[in-house]
């Protein structure tokens, strides 16, 4: 993708406040932007999704400092990585009907490309029928998995009282270092990568990720620490 040019905005267009009788042409600015056909489709989220535009910090910063980078628009970095879950979401578009045959379809259709995903090829990322298994996982199974995880620790977890079980499962998934770094990669993509590398990630985590995706929860696509580490607070 060509590097994002700062939109020139109303500053660059010569505004003729004195004689506004003649209509002016503007070749830049928000109303003339044409989306190039090569841009990947957005899928379920639009550009200004709440995970990327931090409205809370913006309200604090704007009165103090004139924002240097355009805080309203996400940088190419964030759009590129935010599109990870969209790209992954496009594969399983058929949740409950014929899940097994669709994965077989995908696998059968991609037979010549043997390496799927993790070792460089272009596969869909599914080894077998993990997706169907995950979608069949019930809530009680997930809760049982979580209770087993909590029982591993001697002391109870503090500061997690106001999180749902799903959020707790996902945070535990982020903090499991044996599946790789959690920053800079979407949770689903990380799960698929761990699966392809043979690390046996728990299927309940995949179930939670898919459930959150279907519920339209965009914040749950990336790790919580990813958001914290990449926050664009402007230091004054």
């Amino acid at each position: 993708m060509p590097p994002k040019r700062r939109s020139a905005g109303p500053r660059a267009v010569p505004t003729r406040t004195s004689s506004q009788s003649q209509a002016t042409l503007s070749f830049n600015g928000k109303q003339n932007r044409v989306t190039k056909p090569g841009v990947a489709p957005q899928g379920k989220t639009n550009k200004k999704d709440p995970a990327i535009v931090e409205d809370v910090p913006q309200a604090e910063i704007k009165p103090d400092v004139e924002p240097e980078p355009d805080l309203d628009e996400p940088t190419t970095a964030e759009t590129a990585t935010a599109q990870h879950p969209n790209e992954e979401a496009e594969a399983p578009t058929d949740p409950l009907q014929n899940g097994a045959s669709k994965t077989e379809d995908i696998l059968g259709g991609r037979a010549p490309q043997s390496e799927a995903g993790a070792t460089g090829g272009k596969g869909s990322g599914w080894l077998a029928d993990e997706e169907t298994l995950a979608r069949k996982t019930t809530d009680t199974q997930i809760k049982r998995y979580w209770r087993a995880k909590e029982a591993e620790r001697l002391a109870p977890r503090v500061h997690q009282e106001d999180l749902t079980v799903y959020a707790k499962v996902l945070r535990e998934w982020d903090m499991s270092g044996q599946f790789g770094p959690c920053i800079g990669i979407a949770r689903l993509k990380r799960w698929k990568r761990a699966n392809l590398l043979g690390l046996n990630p728990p299927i309940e985590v995949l179930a939670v990720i898919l459930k959150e995706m279907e519920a339209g929860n965009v914040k749950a696509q990336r790790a919580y620490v990813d958001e914290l580490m990449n926050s664009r607070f402007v230091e004054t």
Partner: protein
Amino acid sequence: MAVQYGTEDEGDDSMLHAPSDTEYPLLDRVKSTYTSLPTYQLPKGEDRHYQQQYADMYFARLAQIKPAVEQIASEAWADFGIAGEKALRKDRVLDVRQGELCWVIGTVYMEMPLKPNVLEDIGKEHWIAAPPPRVKYDSGMANGDSEHGAHAGGGKGLSGAQIMLEDESGRLRLTGSYLEGGLLVTGAIVAVVGTENADGDFEVLEIRVPDLPRQPPRWETEDGDAAVNGKSASQKRSKAGKVAIVSGLGMSGDEGDTLSLDMLMEYLLGESAEPGSQEDASAISRLIIAGNSLSHGSPIPSREEMAAVAKKVGRKTYGYDSSSYNKAPTDRLDQWLASLLPSMPITLLPGEQDPTSTSLPQQPIHAAMFPHSRAYMNAPAANEGAGWFDSTTNPAECSVDGWRLLATGGQPVDDVYKYLPDCEERLEMMEAMLRWRLTAPTAPDTLWCYPFQDGDQFVLKECPHVYIVGNQPKFETVVIEGPVGQQVRLVAVPKFKDTGELVLLDCETLVPEVVKFEVFEEG
């Protein structure tokens, strides 16, 4: 390709007669079967992301190679015991305990004082000139112990190299006299057995490497493709010819480098020398150019050049100054290739100084650089695979006459060379790289590379039959053996500009020979 020759018994007067009616048989060039594998091709355009960190790449590398090392180490150390205590496997590097004999797997990290450090560079940028490029990264203070071997300094706590073992949990410093004999660079995945001593360092008793992966039998790629396409796999294969390998042509457009290049071209076309060598030349079925065809094609200016330009122009210029582009070298290369191409197929690998990406894997030199030779290339949109003229990636994997070839332009080996103090054996480094199963072990530490996220593309999944490295100081070759009977021929190809040597690899026996071109200098 037709060449005429007379019988060898006639002397110089053989041509001094009226035209005769004798029929001279024509020589034809031997054909070669060639498949180029797209192992090192990166996705194009928007699919190539640079947002990710390199930690993903190290993690993927460890995860991919761990199973192989685990198997080798558990077989080797099943009965490893000292004074009745057996060695146990520890899952995480930080789980080692003092006094306990155990073995762990991790990535080697070498802390060397002279390694390029970006923070130091930025801090010093305004104060002193850039240091000259280092030949070796070791500080050289351990020179007194050099007779003890490669990594003496680190073991004794001097300011030499410090070797550590790293995995997801943390880092563990390694010591011990065993390290001095071994070859280790950052990025290699090894298993070490030993115990933790009182300082908290791990004393190494033995090291195991993943060793060579599975080697496909000859013709496996072609047979596999034929099976997929539904054709019968039992085709008659004609006798294979020879492959010519050259590297470091170094065309610069202004120096007097034309004569040896012209001699090389005439030799390959069969136009030169006497009938014996013309017959040899007709056996050459393919030419592989392994890097550095242009001598200064990469336009990234160094710090001194930028300062000089800034002084001249009066303001700081960022990036590439397009008015300084000189098209003569690429023109010359294009003409040279275009005169060879009608007669023989060529595979071109980019090198360190060629006009393509600087980070590994270097992508193929674009067809736009070759206005004449591009007629012999396949259109990029067509999925027919490599054409007659294959501009390919660096490193490149291809299948020539059934044999699997792995060729690089020399940057990985040169970088590994910088890590090893007192070691000048390039063949040993090449062998070590194959045994670690990594084509570029020091990427991304000191070698620029693309941030792979899904898997490390430099991990060798299948063992090649021939490993070719270009731009080395001299020609060397050896055959190494693997644990399951793999045999790999290592070939270090010298720079043509310095030595004038061309390597011919016989494709039936895999034995290389050298043809040397030299110009007599008067005085």
